[in-house]
Each structure stands twice: as structure tokens, then as C-alpha cells.
């Protein structure tokens, strides 16, 4: 019995170590995501700490071949969702798709503060999809797994979220055009 259990136990210990290592490596990314999605540094701290607690608790029962980084982000997103749902702030809102896409050129004319303000004007799920795909560079499938929705939903949410960003950034575009330079 012990002979059979030993490799399983050692593999679980190794898995737990992997979780600890990935948690330390991803700490900035987790905090950054929580900060962008919630807009609050204090909330982000609490959410990441809660995420770390849940991840350490679940480390032993985790499947060995799991994408640990995506798994940590999934815990974070669920923690954010639970926290914001209690405050009724996790609300899916429809953003109309604009015929013109948000472009890198538009962004180059805006400041970091403008983009962050525009992001905070979006709904929380829309912010989450932008941060996961564009900032954290997850694939569509990974983001779908993290947010527990279909890949197709991620694509349409991303397109709408970018469209939403464009609508908010139009103001800055116009201002820049009027001034003939950067705001």
C-alpha cells in the first residue's frame, strides 16, 4: 500500500511546490489584473491574498498537467466575481459594436491615465477580458477557461470591450485633433 502511495504523495508534494513557485512568479500579474479589474488597490490586495489562500488549499488536489498560471487566474477571477457579485458590481452590460475598430494609432495618442479611465468606464467582465487577453496575453481558450464561458463569447466580449474603449477614447482623439498634438 505504501509503495503505491509513495509516488502519488511525492508527486503531490512536487505539485504543491509548483503551485508555490507559480504563485510567487505570478504575484505581480495577479495583483495587476485585480487592480485593473476592480480599480481599487486595497481590494486588489485583499483579493490576491484570498486567491493565494485558496490556491495553497487546493494545491494538493490539483491535477498534475494543469496550466498553473491559468488556474491561478481562474481562482482570482472567481474570487473577484464572488466579491463583486455580493456588491452587485459584476454586471454584464452590452456594448454596441462600432463599425470602426479601436486602433493602436488611437491609443498612441492617448495617455496611460486616459486608457485606464476608459477601461474603468467599462463593465467589470469587459475589463477582465481586455486585461486577460491584451495585458496577460492569454489565448482565447485560456481566457474562456478562466472566465468559465465559451471561446466564442470571449471573442465577442473582447470585440465589444475594445469597441467600448474606443467610444470613451473618442473624446481624447477629438481633443488631440483640435490641438494638433498629444493632449
Amino acid at each position, binding site marked *: *500500500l*505504501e509503495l503505491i*502511495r509513495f509516488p502519488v*504523495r511525492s508527486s503531490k*508534494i512536487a505539485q*504543491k511546490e509548483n503551485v*508555490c513557485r507559480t*504563485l*510567487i512568479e505570478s*504575484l*505581480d*500579474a*495577479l*495583483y*495587476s489584473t485585480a*487592480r*485593473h479589474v476592480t480599480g481599487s*488597490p486595497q481590494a*486588489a*490586495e485583499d483579493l*490576491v*491574498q484570498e486567491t*493565494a*489562500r485558496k490556491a*495553497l488549499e487546493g*494545491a*494538493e488536489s490539483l491535477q498534475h498537467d494543469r496550466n498553473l498560471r491559468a488556474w491561478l487566474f481562474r481562482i482570482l477571477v472567481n474570487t473577484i466575481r464572488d466579491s463583486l457579485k455580493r456588491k452587485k458590481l459584476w454586471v454584464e452590460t452590452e456594448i454596441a459594436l462600432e463599425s470602426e*475598430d*479601436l*486602433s*493602436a494609432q488611437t*491609443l*498612441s495618442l*492617448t*495617455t*496611460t491615465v486616459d*486608457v*485606464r479611465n476608459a*477601461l474603468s468606464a467599462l463593465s467589470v467582465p469587459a475589463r477582465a477580458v*481586455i*486585461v486577460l*487577453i*491584451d*495585458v496577460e*496575453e*492569454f*489565448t*482565447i*481558450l485560456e481566457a*474562456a477557461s478562466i472566465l468559465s464561458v465559451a*471561446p466564442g463569447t470571449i*471573442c465577442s466580449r*473582447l*470585440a465589444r470591450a*475594445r469597441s467600448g474603449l474606443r467610444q470613451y477614447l473618442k473624446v481624447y482623439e477629438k481633443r488631440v485633433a483640435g490641438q494638433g498634438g498629444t493632449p
Partner: protein
Amino acid sequence: VNCSRTRQILYPRPDRAETTIESAAALTHLRECADCRWYFEQQAALSHALKEKLGLEVAPAVLRERVTAQIEKHRAASPPRRFYRKRLLNAAVAVLLLVAAPLVLWLHRLPSEQFFEEVCADHAKYLRAESQLRSSDPSTIESWFHDKTEFGVEAPRYENTKLLGSRLCFLKRHKAALLFYRKSGHPVSLFQMDAGGVNLSALSRSVIDGVPVWHKSLNGFSLVALKRRGVLWVLVSDLNESDLLPLALAAWHQF
């Protein structure tokens, strides 16, 4: 696939899109279409620009310390405790299995052992062939049991073995037909009863000439049992098992 479909399939970028059955066709289109390549270059530039503008927020030192402390606490305290708890649990389960397995086996065999002890006791009790019906004619004996048992009693004929008679008896509430024989001066009892509910675990099982046979030496007697059409036949005698086995097999092949 056309441009619109390609942009849908490979959205937001070919390297991050979901792989579908149309992905290969979309990638082929992309290689040949300058407009689509330009579209995805714009998408990549947009992603890059968003990442640059939003930037990475570095976790505050306080948070890093707290999480590191959580990790250290988990590394230091939990694994050994869980490890020993698991080891203790494994050991307890192993001990329980070692103790419980023979006990369960014994408890299962006990009623069977008691039943066959009673079979032997009944054989010993009627050693003088105290029959209710004295007859050496098998058909007379078989018809005598017609209205006495719910199962069909068969009285086999054996060479060099004399049928003496029969009686009805009860073995642990099992109604049984008891047939008396004598072989080479040794009394042989043949019990027949409904096989349902009789536990044979106290006997050893062998398959001889394709016939499953249960046998054992118990309290100085030899027992050989077999099942025929839902009826359990048990031969008991002070003869050896090897002398009883041919009688059991002969009965099996006779009917």
C-alpha cells in the same frame, strides 16, 4: 474562407485564437491576403499598445510579504502534519483490514461450519439406519417422499452399496430427506435438501470430471456434497473422501 470569415476565425490574433476545423483554411487565406495580414498586424499592435498603456502594476511589498508568509507557513507546517496523518490513516486501514478480513471470513464460515456439524451429528445419530421407511427399492423410497418434501428426492443405485431405507429430518430448519446406505460394512448417509440458503463456505470446492464438488473431513466423518437441479446432496460417512467421491459422481451421472 473569405476575409470576413478569416478575421472571425483567427480573432484576435492567429497565435491566440481558438483552433477549429476551419483554422487551417483561414491560415492559408491569411498567407495569401495582404489585407488580412494588415488587419491582424493592427490587432497585434493594438494588444501591444493596450499592454503598454495599462502596464503591469507591481504588487506592494506588504502583499508580497503576506503571500510569502502564507506559502512558508503552508510549506513548513502542513505537509508533515498531513503526511503523518495520512500515514497513520493508512496504517489504521491496513491493521483494520488484517484484523477484519479473517474475522469476516470466520463469521461467514461459522454458520456453514455449524450446519455441516449438524449434518455429521445426524449421520451419527442414525448410524443404525433408524428408518421411517425400510426399503431397498429406490422407487418406493422416491414415492414415499412425494408428499413430504417440496423438492424431488432421487434414490441412486450404487454397485456394492446397499440401500437400507429413509427418513425425514430437519437440519437447522432445512427439511431434508435422509437415505441410508451401507458400503463395505460402513454406514453412508445421503442427505438431500433444497440448496437455497445453504452456505457451503465451510467446505472445499473442487471440480472433478467437470462436476463441481464440495468436500471436507469434519468431526471424524467425510463429507462430499454436490448440487443437482437446485437440490443439495450431501454424502456423509466414516469412509474416506476418496471412497465417497465415486458415489457422488455416480449419482450425478446416473440421473
